[in-house]
């Protein structure tokens, strides 16, 4: 009994405090399941024919030479050829001073750089580091740890896990209905929630539990991973490189060794040095643990220097756990399952927040206004800002310098606006309804905007040519827009009841 009471307090407060952060992580992670599809949507300047003629006219050697013409002394080059979900080239380099990675999306037909966009990767980054680099990683890690605590304490305090397993009573009074929803989405999705929080922590374990690497590798995590993954590394000699062998010929050799598999990322380490090494990673997307079968060649002679051995023991477990989190193993089916289960996680968080609020609305409590404002600012603000990002993607001028940064600014600007509006209206009712209506308008407007500005990518073009990856985004926006519209209509314009109930409750207490 005492344990339950202790756990109830832990669940209430340990759950409340990180829940807005967790909502951001869950929402962004759910969208990131379809990051490549969003990326394609956000690149309307991609030639449509690219999908049909998957074979690019560019060669690996041309892309490498293009990169070297931009950065002849680059520390490393990274190239990814077109793939079914990503019908364009990625080409990037780490500058000589090992500064920030510079990457470019290249048109598969002309080879020209595509217009800059943050793309679907924006949501992926928001998911794991809040677009804030290493500090963000630690914040997300803390949130995940809190989530595990909330899940376990939630199981302990839930008295009727099996009795209420199938129970959801939307017609019941506020608190009852929200508690049902919180329990339902928490309990039915429990295996997923536990797995996703645990494996999420496991991915960055070397960051969160650094003692082992600190001791054995003097803090050099890269050396640790190099050993664990049996990767090859060759130090620079600071002598100029001999003429390079053809990357396309080396790739052909790698593909015969793999038995015809497709390549993932291809890298050239210190390309201007005599000790330059070319590495080909296999794109394996059929097992949970993604063994890349990396082949390392001498960049000049083309001699095979090293072949990665299959992961063993602890590292295999690590890649299995991280693979389970990243959902790249079962195609669209798994991505879709993860999207739905992730949204169920969002629903659990919203349910929990509403339980907290309605409990205190009934009997009064401190922090109510603050929690309500945060609910509106995060639960309403983030989806609205995400829609705003897609508007920014279409409406910002194509030639804008730092276009990606401008898009990010649109996203955070829109979010700040919504947050400010919610704070300004914190004592008034009907915020939810207005935000739902706005969300509906924004979501329904996007396919229309797509039709007006980039007709080649709109539903009228993508559906007839059976381009489902592109059409699905527009269709999903239409569904979301209609659903939000319906919910906004169903919500009464103003509900004065809770306020009166609260006054009554306070009156009784006095």
């Amino acid at each position, binding site marked *: 009994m005492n344990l339950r009471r202790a756990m109830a307090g832990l669940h209430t407060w340990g759950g409340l405090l990180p829940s807005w952060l967790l909502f951001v992580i869950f929402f962004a992670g759910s969208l990131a399941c379809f990051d490549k599809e969003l990326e394609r949507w956000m690149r309307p300047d991609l030639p449509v024919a690219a999908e049909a003629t998957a074979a690019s006219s560019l060669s690996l050697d041309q892309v490498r030479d293009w990169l070297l013409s931009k950065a002849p002394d680059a520390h490393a080059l990274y190239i990814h050829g077109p793939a079914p979900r990503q019908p364009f080239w990625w080409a990037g380099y780490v500058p000589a001073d090992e500064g920030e990675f510079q990457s470019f999306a290249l048109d598969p037909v002309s080879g020209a750089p595509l217009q800059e966009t943050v793309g679907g990767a924006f949501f992926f980054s928001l998911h794991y580091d809040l677009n804030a680099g290493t500090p963000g990683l630690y914040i997300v890690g803390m949130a995940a740890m809190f989530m595990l605590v909330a899940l376990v304490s939630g199981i302990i305090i839930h008295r009727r896990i099996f009795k209420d397993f199938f129970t959801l009573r939307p017609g019941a009074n506020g608190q009852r209905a929200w508690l049902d929803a919180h329990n*339902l989405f928490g309990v039915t*999705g429990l295996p997923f929630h536990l797995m996703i929080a645990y494996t999420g922590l496991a991915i960055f374990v070397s960051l969160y539990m650094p003692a082992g690497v600190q001791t054995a590798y003097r803090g050099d995590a890269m050396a640790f991973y190099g050993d664990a993954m049996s990767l090859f590394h060759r130090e620079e000699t600071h002598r100029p490189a001999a003429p390079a062998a053809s990357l396309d010929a080396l790739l052909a050799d790698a593909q015969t060794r793999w038995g015809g598999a497709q390549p993932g990322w291809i890298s050239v380490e210190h390309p201007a040095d005599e000790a330059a090494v070319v590495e080909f990673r296999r794109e394996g997307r059929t097992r949970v643990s993604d063994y890349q079968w990396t082949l390392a060649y001498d960049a000049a002679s083309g001699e095979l220097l090293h072949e990665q051995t299959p992961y063993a023991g602890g590292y295999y477990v690590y890649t299995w756990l991280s693979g389970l989190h990243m959902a790249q193993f079962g195609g669209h089916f798994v991505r879709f399952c*993860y999207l739905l289960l992730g949204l169920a996680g969002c629903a659990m968080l919203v349910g929990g927040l509403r339980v907290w609020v309605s409990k205190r609305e009934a009997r009064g409590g401190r922090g109510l206004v603050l929690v309500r404002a945060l609910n509106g600012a995060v639960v309403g603000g983030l989806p609205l800002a995400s829609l705003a990002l897609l508007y920014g993607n279409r409406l910002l001028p194509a030639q804008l310098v730092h276009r990606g940064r401008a898009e990010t600014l649109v996203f955070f600007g829109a979010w700040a606006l919504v947050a400010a509006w919610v704070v300004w209206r914190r004592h008034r009712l009907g915020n939810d309804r207005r935000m739902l209506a706005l969300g509906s308008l924004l979501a329904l407007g996007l396919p229309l905007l797509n039709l007006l500005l980039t007709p080649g990518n709109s539903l009228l073009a993508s559906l007839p040519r059976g381009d489902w990856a592109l059409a699905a985004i527009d269709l999903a926006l239409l569904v979301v827009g209609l659903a939000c519209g319906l919910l906004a209509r169903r919500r009464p314009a103003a509900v004065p009841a809770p306020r009166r109930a609260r006054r009554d409750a306070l009156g009784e207490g006095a």
Partner: protein
Amino acid sequence: MLTAFAFAYLAVLALCLAMNRHHKALFTGEPSPLRRQLLRLVALPLMALSLALCIRDADVELGILFWLALLMLATLALVLTLAWRQRWAMPLAGLLLVSSALTHLG
């Protein structure tokens, strides 16, 4: 995968009907103890069938994961149907089975 989902849905529907409250809601009256036991017993082979189908389609490693995801989603689908469109809960099972049969024929 649709067939596996149909059987997962049937299994959770059987488990759900084995409970007084939900049995009363979908049929008339409380179930007899025997009926409850039977419903629970039926759920097991249905779940096993769903798992077997997943493993057949996707091998053991992925099959088990697919099955777990399908079970969670089937439960969610059932409860959301029960909450807003209670009368559709039973016909939905039939619809799922028929449509999965059709995809096998087609």
